[in-house]
């Protein structure tokens, strides 16, 4: 027993002295749990800032109330106008709002047309345009819009019923019928007759999501939402097309961190010293590593996309040139990140630990696992500083939206910019660091 205790104690001593193991055991899970907590569990959790374009052409109070309700939902960033190329702010019309979604500037658009709800309407009529580039986000948008629309439903139905009675029975007889119905409802259900005869939004509330669960079918003829998918209709496998980039980038970062860290193995074995005693400089070694990693990254990504194409019918060839540009830019940026990790580490173990922490965190906040719109606004800000975010956005642009070169220029510039900054930092660090000592 004594011996077991001694060995047990020494195991802790060894573990505690291995800072990488300690970090992997406690810090990495802590960071990831914090990110997941912020996304799904905190008081400030839930989606935020999903860009929803709204055009209200109707003059009816119901449409106005729907518009007002949308304004209060924190998940949405409501956009009602756009800037033209000349910088002029213009309110959407039915064509420009669709173009806005098509260009990826908003996730979806809700149009409340002139006939959303008229005096002769039986129910509500709404147009919904969407880009399901992110399935999870789109389900949320759908759910929230249904909730808002159906929250108007009781008053619409009541008003509609009253009007229908007056139309078919005549104003006088219909009025009597309505009052009698109101009395009966009052008698048996204790509902104020004024509320029944003069329905307002505040009088009827649908509580929780369950109320809307079966509603679309039941009220199909009363609430008519005309859905139109603007992007990706022709995709053979939308799920794979959306996912392949995110997963590819995550694995790419793992690969490149490992290969960058091979410098440590070469230092330990003395190969680095042998190379540096031949007509080879430190700059030669670093550049060769950089080029090797970058080309390996490109090959790995291309391999993954090819696999996606063969197995899941991801269409990589219709926009292949632009896809290659994003692959190159993403490989450059990821390689720079791998080199940075190697430059700031003193051993391979440290590089692996730091790499795991950074890669998983960046994948989480960069949108590889779930939409960035599900994160608090502060984390969303940091998302845009990650290689993962811009790589995934770039892949979505070329694969999902099929955009041309001009549209991906910002993505390319940002990825190359990140790559350049990380490279400068890592080169400085390599000059001062321990790898060549």
């Amino acid at each position: 027993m004594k011996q077991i205790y001694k060995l047990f104690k020494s195991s802790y001593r060894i573990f505690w002295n291995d800072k990488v193991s300690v970090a992997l055991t406690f810090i990495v899970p802590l960071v990831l749990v914090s990110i997941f907590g912020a996304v799904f569990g905190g008081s400030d959790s839930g989606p935020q800032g999903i860009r929803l374009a709204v055009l209200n052409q109707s003059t009816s109070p119901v449409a106005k109330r729907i518009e007002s309700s949308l304004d209060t939902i924190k998940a949405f960033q409501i956009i009602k106008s756009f800037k033209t190329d000349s910088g002029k702010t213009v309110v959407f019309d039915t064509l420009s709002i669709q173009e806005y979604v098509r260009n990826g500037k908003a996730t979806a658009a809700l149009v409340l047309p002139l006939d959303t709800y008229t005096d002769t309407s039986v129910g509500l009529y709404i147009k919904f345009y969407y880009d399901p580039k992110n399935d999870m986000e789109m389900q949320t948008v759908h759910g929230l819009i249904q909730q808002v629309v159906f929250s108007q439903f009781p008053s619409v139905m009541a008003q509609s019923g009253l009007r229908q009675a007056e139309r078919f029975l005549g104003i006088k007889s219909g009025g009597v019928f309505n009052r009698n119905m109101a009395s009966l409802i009052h008698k048996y259900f204790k509902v104020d007759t004024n509320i029944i005869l003069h329905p307002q939004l505040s009088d009827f509330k649908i509580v929780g999501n369950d109320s809307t669960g079966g509603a679309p079918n039941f009220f199909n003829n009363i609430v008519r939402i005309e859905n139109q998918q603007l992007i990706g209709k022709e995709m053979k496998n939308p799920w794979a097309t959306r996912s392949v980039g995110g997963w590819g980038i995550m694995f790419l970062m793992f690969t490149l961190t490992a290969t960058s860290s091979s410098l440590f193995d070469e230092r330990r074995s003395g190969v680095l010293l042998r190379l540096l005693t031949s007509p080879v400089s430190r700059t030669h070694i670093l550049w060769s590593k950089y080029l090797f990693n970058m080309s390996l990254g490109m090959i790995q990504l291309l391999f993954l996309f090819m696999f996606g194409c063969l197995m899941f019918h991801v269409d990589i060839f219709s926009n292949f040139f632009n896809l290659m540009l994003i692959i190159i830019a993403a490989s450059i940026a990821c390689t720079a990140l791998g080199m940075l990790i190697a430059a700031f580490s003193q051993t391979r173990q440290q590089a692996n630990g730091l790499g795991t922490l950074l890669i998983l965190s960046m994948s989480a906040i960069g949108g590889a696992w779930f939409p960035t719109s599900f994160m608090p606004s502060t984390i969303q800000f940091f998302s845009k500083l990650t290689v993962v975010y811009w790589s995934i956005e770039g892949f979505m642009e070329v694969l999902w939206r099929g955009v041309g070169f001009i549209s991906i220029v910002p993505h390319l510039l940002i990825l190359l910019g990140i790559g350049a900054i990380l490279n400068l930092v890592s080169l400085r660090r390599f000059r001062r660091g321990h790898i060549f000592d």
Partner: protein
Amino acid sequence: MVSHGEFMINIQQITKKYPTATALDAVTLEVQRQEFFGLLGPNGAGKTTLMNLLVGYINPDSGTITIDGDNVTQDTLDIRKKIGFVPQSLALYDELTAQENLEVFGQMFDIQRKLLKKRIEEQLHAVELYERRKDKVKTFSGGMKRRLNIIASLLHDPKVLLCDEPTVGVDPQSRNAIFDFLTSLNKQGKTIIYTTHYMEEAERLCSRIGIIDHGKIIALGTIDELLEKLAYEETIVIIKNPLTAKNRAVFEKFGTLLEEDDRYELKPVEGFLLSDFFAGIERKGIKYSWVELHRPTLEALFLQLTGRRLRD
């Protein structure tokens, strides 16, 4: 006086300091062309730092180093073509074959493809690894790896070969093979600097030896010149047994007595006479056969100079 240009390697007043210690302190050393020079010293004496300076891997804080007339600190990339460096560690790619390793390292010197192939074959034959050339290095024994480690430094046919403890962890048979190979290289005209903390290696291989300790060259010369610095001409070894152990005081009258596991080593004082010594032990009944006279070693010189043993 010999001008600096006449030496193959000329080290003048080299100092290298690290944050916690001075690795080399104003070291001056000249190595003749085609000389087999040994640098002997304990671990941490500054041998590897000096080698790293010679190959331009690190720069000195002060002083100059020239190899074949070229300043190492100013012209490192070109000068490296004149140097072959055998690092202390096995600087090889385990996952590559012996031949692939040699190709990788040989290519760095811009050797023509055909010539490189020829040299690789020659060197593999020279160290008896040709038959294993297509095997991965990870399958090699320690001695085979050491031999490959050496020939990887010879593919560009350097004028100078710097060997930093190239036999660490090698069995005696492989060590002898390595010694023979290095000796033949020296005979072919290569200047060799060989660092070690084994005095036997330095004594066997090197025509001239520098003893280094705490970053300073404390003795320099041929073996005979170095041993002349000792205060005595022989070391007396006495077998340890109950009788000799009982008479330690008798031995100590004649010099410094060191106790080993199975023997005593007597370093005689100045003016020591063998006849007095033998007369003394005879009186105590100690047999002559228990006593051996040995030529003093560099170990003894190091002890005399530093008060410590080489392997301490």
